[in-house]
């Protein structure tokens, strides 16, 4: 009798009854510290997703190594559908360029991208430039004169800026900080000339006139920063680098589960409550799923690989 029960249990485990997915709590790994941009985006989304899926979601923050510590730890999870990764693009497409990681962009099952935003470059009001074009001209005319803060050496923000600088042969000095907050603090205190980072921390300071943001790293301009030029208008549309967020699964995840999750994400990301939340952070929803998402990851990885090589950062 006992033997029979064990056999039944074993069969039940071996035959995935995915029709009822999800039947228990889902653990979501966030490879960033609690309270940051990726964390708040994922947690807010999780509250909506819990209702949509009818399962509770447990969040595990594993920070460090620019995201690679958490992603590597996540790699050990089995593709059951109950372990997911909510990350921003840097740990997947940038970090493998500069660190020896155990994963590549194709080491995961792509589920869906969720939202995106541009990085921005901002200066003090007395900086001798008022448009994106003047800003780049001033930098090009004064090699090694200006310092720009960024989120960390070889991080996506630095590569986003260097893609622009390299195409205009600009030499600006990168000062790496622990995060956008630290960069902002040093920018406001006048210790560095240029703020480089995500839009949301610096946004209030453009409104009160303490900062003027002249460039965003997206091809199109951003509504919240009317003075900042999009890269398309500078003839650099091909050099677009975004900060974007996604949900990934371990490699080999069942397509039925992927579809369930992608549909649920598509719906919750476009929920008015979430769109409004994204707007306060200067982010817009953008759901890309399946093969298109895999292509987006690989394309970005290849483009950033070129910049990293030119900077001598690549492994």
């Amino acid at each position, binding site marked *: 009798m006992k033997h029979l029960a064990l056999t039944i249990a074993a069969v039940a485990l071996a035959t995935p009854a995915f029709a009822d997915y999800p039947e228990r709590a889902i653990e979501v790994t966030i490879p960033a*510290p*609690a*309270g*940051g941009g990726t*964390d*708040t985006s994922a*947690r*807010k989304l*999780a*509250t909506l997703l819990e209702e949509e899926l009818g399962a509770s979601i447990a*969040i*595990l*923050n*594993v*920070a*460090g*190594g*620019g995201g*690679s*510590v958490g992603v*590597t*730890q996540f790699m050990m999870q089995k593709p059951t559908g109950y372990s997911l990764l909510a990350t921003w693009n840097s740990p997947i497409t940038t970090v493998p360029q*500069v*660190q*020896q*990681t*155990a994963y590549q962009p194709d080491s995961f099952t792509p589920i869906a991208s969720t939202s995106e935003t541009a990085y921005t470059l901002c200066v003090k009001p007395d900086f001798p430039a008022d448009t994106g074009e003047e800003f780049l001209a001033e930098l090009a005319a004064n090699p*090694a004169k200006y*310092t720009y803060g960024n989120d*960390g*050496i*070889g991080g996506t923000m630095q590569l986003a800026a260097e893609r622009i600088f390299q195409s205009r042969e600009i030499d600006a*000095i990168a*000062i*790496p*900080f*622990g995060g956008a*907050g*630290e960069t*902002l*603090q*040093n920018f*406001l*205190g*006048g*210790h*560095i000339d240029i703020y480089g980072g995500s839009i*949301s*921390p610096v*946004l*209030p*300071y453009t*409104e*009160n006139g*303490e900062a003027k943001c002249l460039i965003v790293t997206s091809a199109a301009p951003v509504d919240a920063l009317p003075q900042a030029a999009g890269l398309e208008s500078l003839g650099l549309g091909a050099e677009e680098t975004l900060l974007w967020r996604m949900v990934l699964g371990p490699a080999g995840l069942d397509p039925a589960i992927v579809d369930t999750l992608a549909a649920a994400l598509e719906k919750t990301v476009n929920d008015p409550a979430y769109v*409004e*939340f994204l707007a*306060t*952070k200067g982010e817009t929803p953008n759901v890309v799923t399946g093969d298109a998402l895999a292509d987006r990851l690989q394309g970005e990885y290849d483009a950033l690989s070129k910049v990293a090589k030119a900077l001598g*950062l690549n492994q």
Partner: protein
Amino acid sequence: MDLIFDILGSVLAVGPVTAMIGASILGVFIGALPGLNPVMAIALLLPLTYSMQPLVALGMVAGIYNGSMYGGAIPAILLRIPGTPAAIATTYDGFPMAQRGEAARALKIACWSSAIGGVASAIALMTIGPILARATLLFGPAEYFWIAMFGMASIGVMVGSDAVKGLMAAALGLLLGTVGLDQLSGTPRFTFGEIWLLSGLDLIVILVGLYALPPVIALAEAADIKGLSASDLKLEAAKLPWSDIRAFMPTWLRSALIGISVGILPGAGGNIAAFLSYNAAKSASSDPDSFGKGNPQGVAAAECGNNADNAASMIPALTLGIPGNVIAALVLGALLIHGLQPGPQLFHQNPGLVGGFMVQMLLTSLLILAVGGAAATRVFAQVQRLPGVMLVPMILVLMAVGVYVINGRVIDLWVMFAAGIAGYVLEKVNVPLAPIVLGLILGPMAEQSVRRALLISRGDPTELLTRPLSAALALATLALILWPIVRAWRAQKA
């Protein structure tokens, strides 16, 4: 005036009041259990409040934050095990007091000191917060370098009787601090190809091992199977008469100022605030040798200093939108989720909410007196009645659970045990542990700051000394190093 009544009205509603009281009690427990810490508790609980009104969420943060800073003192005093890293300095005099049979009195002093530090800090947040926040912007990488050097110079007073051993301990801390991905070059250092080491050794994991395991081993060695009897607790001696309070006033004032100053500058935190406050109390004392042997002033200084760090650490977050520590980052994250935009206009746009949170930081500091003074002191002092044979396994399990939950990985447990055994051996050979902690925290801060400063100055080291503020901090560091020499020389002459 209307605004004040509005704020009080919304803070004193049923939801926020329940949140504050519940969270203060919870906070004391979280602080008291080694391994569990407020950062983790707030990270776990805050998302549960996203659907509630913001002042409930913020009241909970305030209660846990302030409650846990006091809670950390409880095992520090009773068992020499700091409940949170910020309570390390509390063990120095708290535990000797407990051994003298003054545990209840030490707990009472810790409770009052925590409350006073917290209140002073909350008042600073409410009154001069915006001005202080602007002042912190003057601190660039060069200034942070000197702050780290100032902190390290204070090791001189911490090294104990044998200076060489103290410096060796500091060097060990500096060495451990170099492990991980170098933030400025992106090069992994001492990681031996292990990915989990890229983020460096987790400070909490090391500190739990280093500070909690040796006392646990000592408890096990004592093989005590009886525990104290109820009459040995001397609870009636826990009264804090007015004369005592007056005697603590200068220490409280000094520690509050230190705690607030450390709090508004991102990077250091409650543990450094407590160390510096303890240090200052010892230096100012007419009998510095009595510190470390159960001087109540040591407990008062450390506990007031670490609570004074709390509200002040929220100043840059609430006034500039720049989070100075993880808890401030969590609060900003919660505000964002409630649709608020952190930044300089936050207070003007949402005075009720931001003002409400400030009032909550004040009220939860006062709640420490009710929760801690009336209840916790009596309840927790009973821990001493438990025999060691019961305490040891209980504490070990709590430590392991707490450390595992931080990153959800087993390897951290091994790091904790390794640090603990190292700490045990070092204590046996009279090597002080405090310099290890200071080196571990301040080493990376000093290294990264000085390299950033040199990047900005294009390699010109004079920038480190020629900015007015950096020059002042450098002189303060020099004075701190020279002061004991001058004092010794004077004593010799006299």
